[in-house]
């Protein structure tokens, strides 16, 4: 295993020390592993809390700051944080206007956030609303299963709901924005290589030199199918087609198109993929209102990418353009 780490058991704690050193504008509670906005709690503003397993950086800690999250809980690598962390985060951002939990739909994340909400309800009067993201079309949606995974839409949701909260909208409206974003966004990912979980010490799966996995998530779980390596233009089709056939994206005010790198893929390849994605969208009559290209939700060192499309209206475009100042996303400020 080749990684820039010390003891595999210390990866999360060590990386948080680095974040703290690099971002004095944030406040990091190392004991609870919570990254806070330096000025949290903001009186009268809805607090946004997210979190999840580590290994997806900059998500979520890198999205803490003005216009996005108020706090993020960092779990062990690929392991949901525990309720204690979420309770600490929730209390720490409660400015009297309630708190939104942004939860990705994984059994562990959902259960731990649920327990945290139960604890918060038992201990204090803080109003907590949870919104769960489940945008991954690689997974069949069914009442009888764990449902779809929360992936790329989560990044967009944190930006958009964060902007709504920053504007002073009340909890119910912020939660509405979040639910709308989740309902209108879909994603699909692929991997060229497996990632290696530090504690495991070897790649989660083996993938021959001439094959790739289509329909992967962000935890190194194998995808839905394994196929021969293909040119970027075909990969773009394999990712965009299932997204387009799951939801109507043409017409209206267009989409935010998001090409995300999974950690081991350099930016040159992401731009190249974006060129191909844009081509497929144009061919399909989908208008791109805004775009985002980069590694914003990673899966450790996995090579690969995901494509997310989010249907937007005027209000969402305005929220997208609103100022944001976080380590991971920054504009307009």
């Amino acid at each position, binding site marked *: 295993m080749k990684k820039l780490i010390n003891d595999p058991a210390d990866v999360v704690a060590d990386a948080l020390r680095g974040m703290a050193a690099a971002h004095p504008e944030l406040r990091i509670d190392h004991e609870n592993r919570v990254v806070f906005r330096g000025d949290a709690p903001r009186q009268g503003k809805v607090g946004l809390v997210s979190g999840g397993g580590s290994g997806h950086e900059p998500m979520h800690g890198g999205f803490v700051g003005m216009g996005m999250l108020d706090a993020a809980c960092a779990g*062990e690598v690929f392991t949901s944080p*525990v309720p204690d962390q979420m309770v600490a985060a929730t209390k720490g951002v409660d400015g009297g206007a309630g708190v939104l939990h942004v939860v990705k739909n994984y059994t*562990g994340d959902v259960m731990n956030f649920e327990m945290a909400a139960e604890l918060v309800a038992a201990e204090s009067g803080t109003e907590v609303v949870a919104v769960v993201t489940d945008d*991954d079309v690689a997974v069949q949606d069914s009442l009888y299963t764990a449902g779809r995974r929360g992936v790329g839409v989560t990044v967009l949701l944190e930006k958009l709901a964060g902007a709504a909260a920053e504007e002073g909208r009340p909890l119910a409206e912020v939660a509405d924005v979040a639910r709308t974003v989740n309902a209108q966004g879909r994603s699909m990912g692929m991997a060229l290589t497996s990632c290696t*979980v530090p*504690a*495991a010490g070897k790649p989660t799966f083996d993938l021959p030199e001439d094959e790739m996995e289509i329909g992967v998530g962000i*935890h190194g779980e194998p995808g839905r199918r394994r196929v021969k390596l293909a040119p970027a233009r075909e990969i773009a089709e394999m990712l965009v087609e299932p997204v387009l056939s799951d939801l109507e994206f043409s017409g209206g005010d267009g989409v935010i198109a998001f090409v995300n790198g999974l950690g081991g893929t350099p930016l040159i390849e992401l731009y190249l993929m974006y060129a191909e994605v844009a081509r497929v969208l144009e061919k399909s009559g989908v208008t791109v209102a805004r775009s985002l290209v980069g590694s914003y939700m990673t899966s450790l060192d996995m090579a690969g990418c995901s494509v997310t499309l989010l249907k937007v209206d005027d209000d969402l475009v305005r929220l997208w353009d609103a100022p944001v100042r976080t380590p991971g996303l920054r504009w307009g400020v």
Partner: protein
Amino acid sequence: MADQLDVAALGAWVREFARSIAEHKDELTALDSAIGDADHGANMDRGMSAAVAALEASPPADPAALLKQVGMTLVSKVGGASGPLYGTFFLRMAGALGPDPADDQTFARALRAGLDGVIARGKAEPGDKTMLDALTPACDALEAALAEGQPFGAALTAAAAAAGEGRDATVPLVARKGRASYLGERSAGHQDPGATSTALLLDAAVTALSGSGG
């Protein structure tokens, strides 16, 4: 002797489970690599090491307190799916035990309460390819054996055997809950990591508690 399941015996069970998890850590992670995210071994080991450390640091006074401490530790140290699930399991067991040493029947009822807690928390059913596929048959077998009047040690052995069979039976299943469900049909042909750790829990009960029951 129907009242031997005291704090010492249950503490021995927890320690034996922790030892066994540490021993099988890599195996659990390997199983989780095939159909999950390669952390079940690390998760369980982190949690059970912390549970044992807590037992050392502040020895609980009675069975309920002991299992509550284990459950709380798992909830606050593990995360992921296994943290809330195993945590709830031990917390519900604790709730079904009194402060006094338990007898066989009480232990069986507590195990069932734990199982119900896992179902309530995780909303899975037997056949979904989860730890329930080991825990449910184990509870059933324990209750059946005790109802037949078998001694506690034999009943636990039957429960552990049922858990092992349940674990093995997860291999052909297509997962409907947990991370493995994302793989759809590709999850078939692999043993569920959580069912595997649950079978170890029952094996640990045989090792640590067989001599204690009535």
